[in-house]
């Protein structure tokens, strides 16, 4: 099985939780390595990178040890999926995590089933990215927007927009059917992630900001209040 080959590194200082997650992940077939602090994890990662890292923010004495670890991991690999799993629920932490290039940010009060769902969603997305899409869908052009699906590249007014995977799939989903309102669930499905409502909002904010960097007039993503978002062609 492919899953057997997938190796997840779980960096969590709370042993009980770590082992509970490990048990659950192993039960559905992943290989799990447990690390209780940053140093151990880092030592292992420099030898061999796992297929995915699930990291707690606070690691023993290091209040933001997880963030440091994430930063190092991103230097080691641009594409390694990283999920933060933490008891902290402040937006600041979440924004910091996503800014560091984490693919997801989960609080410990989500159920283990959701964690499993996200893990598998992340792996599925990697699979999907590896598989080339049908030839006529490779490039999506919507006015100033151009998306290369195969190479996961986004251009606005012919300038590249650097988006995370999640952000890329959100933009893709919205731009594919301009004018249609995509609600949060649809966007989550498209991004192959399970996020809570506020996280979608955060993603949309960050997407807008990235486009606004290139074009201060950028206004293509409209909020449909209470319902979701839509792509508007100028």
């Amino acid at each position, binding site marked *: 099985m492919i899953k057997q080959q997938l190796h997840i590194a779980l960096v969590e200082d709370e042993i009980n939780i770590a082992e509970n997650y490990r048990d659950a992940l192993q*039960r559905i077939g992943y290989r799990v390595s447990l690390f209780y602090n940053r140093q151990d994890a880092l030592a292992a990662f420099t030898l061999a990178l796992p297929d995915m890292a699930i990291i707690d923010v606070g690691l023993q004495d290091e209040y933001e040890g997880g963030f440091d670890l994430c930063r190092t991991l991103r230097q080691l690999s641009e594409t390694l999926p990283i999920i933060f799993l933490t008891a902290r629920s*402040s*937006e600041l932490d979440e924004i910091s995590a996503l800014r560091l290039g984490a693919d997801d940010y989960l609080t*410990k*009060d989500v159920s283990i089933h959701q964690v499993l769902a996200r893990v598998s969603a992340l792996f599925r997305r990697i699979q999907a990215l590896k598989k080339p899409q049908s030839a006529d869908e490779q490039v999506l052009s919507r006015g100033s927007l151009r998306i290369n699906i195969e190479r996961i590249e986004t251009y606005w007014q012919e300038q590249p927009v650097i988006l995370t995977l999640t952000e890329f799939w959100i933009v893709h989903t919205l731009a594919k059917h301009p004018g249609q309102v995509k609600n949060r669930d649809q966007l989550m499905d498209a991004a192959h992630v399970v996020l809570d409502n506020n996280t979608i909002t955060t993603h949309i904010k960050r997407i807008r900001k990235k486009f606004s960097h290139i074009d201060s007039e950028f206004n293509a993503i409209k909020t*449909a209040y209470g319902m979701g978002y839509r792509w508007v062609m100028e």
Partner: protein
Amino acid sequence: MGHGVIIHFSLKTQLLLVASLMLLLPWAGCQSVSVLETSLRQSHSQLLDVKMTAAAQQIERKLNQSQYPNLNTNQGNYYAPLTDSKMLLDGFDGEESDWENITTPWFQLNTYNYVAGLSTEAKPSTTVKFKLAANDKLLYILIQTSALTPHYFNPMQPKKIADQLNIRSINNTGLISRWQINPQGSGRVEMHNMSKTMKTSRDAGTWLWRDGHYNIEIAIPINLASNAIGFDLVLNDQQQNQHFKSKPATTYERSLVREQWALNQQLANYIQPGLSLYLLNSQYWLVGQLNAEQVTDDSLENDDIQEEPSWLMHTIYNKLFTSDSLPYWREPTSLGRWRSPQQLEQTAWYQDSPINKQLNSKVIIVNGQQFYVVAVQDSRQSLLSASDALNQLLILLFTIIAVIVTGLFAFASSLSWRIVQMKKHYRAAIDSDGKIMAVPAASRLPDELGDLSRVMQQLTINQGKYTDYLATLADKLSHELKTPVAVIRTSLENMELSNLDPEATKYLTRAMQGTNRLSQTLNALSEANRLEQSLEYAQWQIVPLDDMLEELTEAYRQVYNSYQFQLKYDNNLEYAINLAPELIVQLLDKLISNAVDFSPVNDAIVFTLTKQDKQLKLTIENQGPHFSSDNISQLFDSMVSIRQQSETPHLGLGLHIVKLISDFHHGNINAKNLSGDKGVIFELLLPIENK
């Protein structure tokens, strides 16, 4: 609890009131000056009394020596004031005549040959009056009749009836003189001396018939009439040979009392500024006088150049030092006679403007007759000397008081200002929820207020720490509890994945439910804190609120499909407003979730958007049960729930979040019960221009 009406009584006012006690000082000053003035007045009275006693004795002696005529005034007498000028006997009195400046009474001449049996209508209506004035040579007489037809003496027909005037006079030595005037026409007349065997004539004066009546102005030597004089005017107007006489008898003269130059000279010996002297006979006729005004004019003008205090100062002094019980002064003499004899024989003070007067009278006996020497003294002298000192005292006192009061007021103002500033700072520092925005700087001044300020600052810092601790307590608590809860939950979930027998599954499900509930509670606890953090990242934009609400109500209709959502607004208006839309959606979500929880199924939840001057007003109305009026004011406070116990945990944070977002927008949220037995309305006011 009802608010008691608190009358604001500022520190400044209080201090001003206390400072006004300083006004007691000038009052006390005035009191002491008043006492001084009273004693001055008494000593003045005594002084005057002593002087008067001496003067009265002197005058008495002088008059006795000078053989002042012994007048019989029992039957009434005539009075002639002193005229200092030689009068022109032109038959005129009134304005611009010699008589104008002489205050002398009119005397009546009566007709005594009244014939019984004449009807009343036939009574003569003619009246005759006369007045007198004298100097040391002549006695001037002005006789005036009412309107009549003149009958002049015709020397060609001496027997024919004609008007004539007879005069009898007696001098000091008892010599009786009789005179007769027979006018031959309007004009100059002669006077015949009837007492001498040889009939002599002399120029008498003028006998005028003017404007229908006689004006007779004549003069006789005073040394022939110094004791008594009488008139007998014979007229023939309505009745022939009608006599108008001084007395019915053939000796019709009456005593003549006159003001004498010699006596005035006597009195002039006692000349003194502000002193008027009057010498009265027993019938209170003025026989000699010395007026203060003359004195002032003559002697004071030279050496007393000092400025007269203004009438205002006088008025103030009089108000301060004159007791109201003093009677008002009025001119004591009228037409040569003392007005009120009861004033005499006593010493009294009178109030007058601008200066008070004191009156002192002494009785002297001259030739067995009673005379009064009356002195009227202006209190000007004493008052002036007192008032100079008083003036300075008052000015000094008022200056000191003004300085002290100003100083006190300024000091009070500065204290009050400091307190007000402190109040303002602390009011601004602590918002309505008791949250500390910024700790005001403490005063560095080394007084009690400075201490208070420093203590207040310390208290505020402590309170701030405590508030922060309280605010983060829930978050910390939830954070600390999350890990053990996660341990429990992940364990349970793992257990769920392993094969359990049905009995164990039952308990597992219960444990899972309990854990979920605990989890939700912990989330809710940290939600407000999370929101406060996320406010920093809020994105402001200008949004047409009507369009936004249209989208939202549509979304709510889909989510809560068993409720009616209505949106009312005026289509013609612009509702563009600067706000953080994500937060406003969150606010509305909370309000709607609250409304849906309480409102009966299928009822309408009504949004009404209206535009006010500089803000938009959104009301959300539902038909849920009333809030109890007790807790309506704390509805938006944290951890206040007015719900019945329900399945989902409820910490009353929803409306607190609404309040946080509303405050963040500088808006205002409040809730009210609708009239009627149910229905509540939330009212949100948002400023259009924000930030």
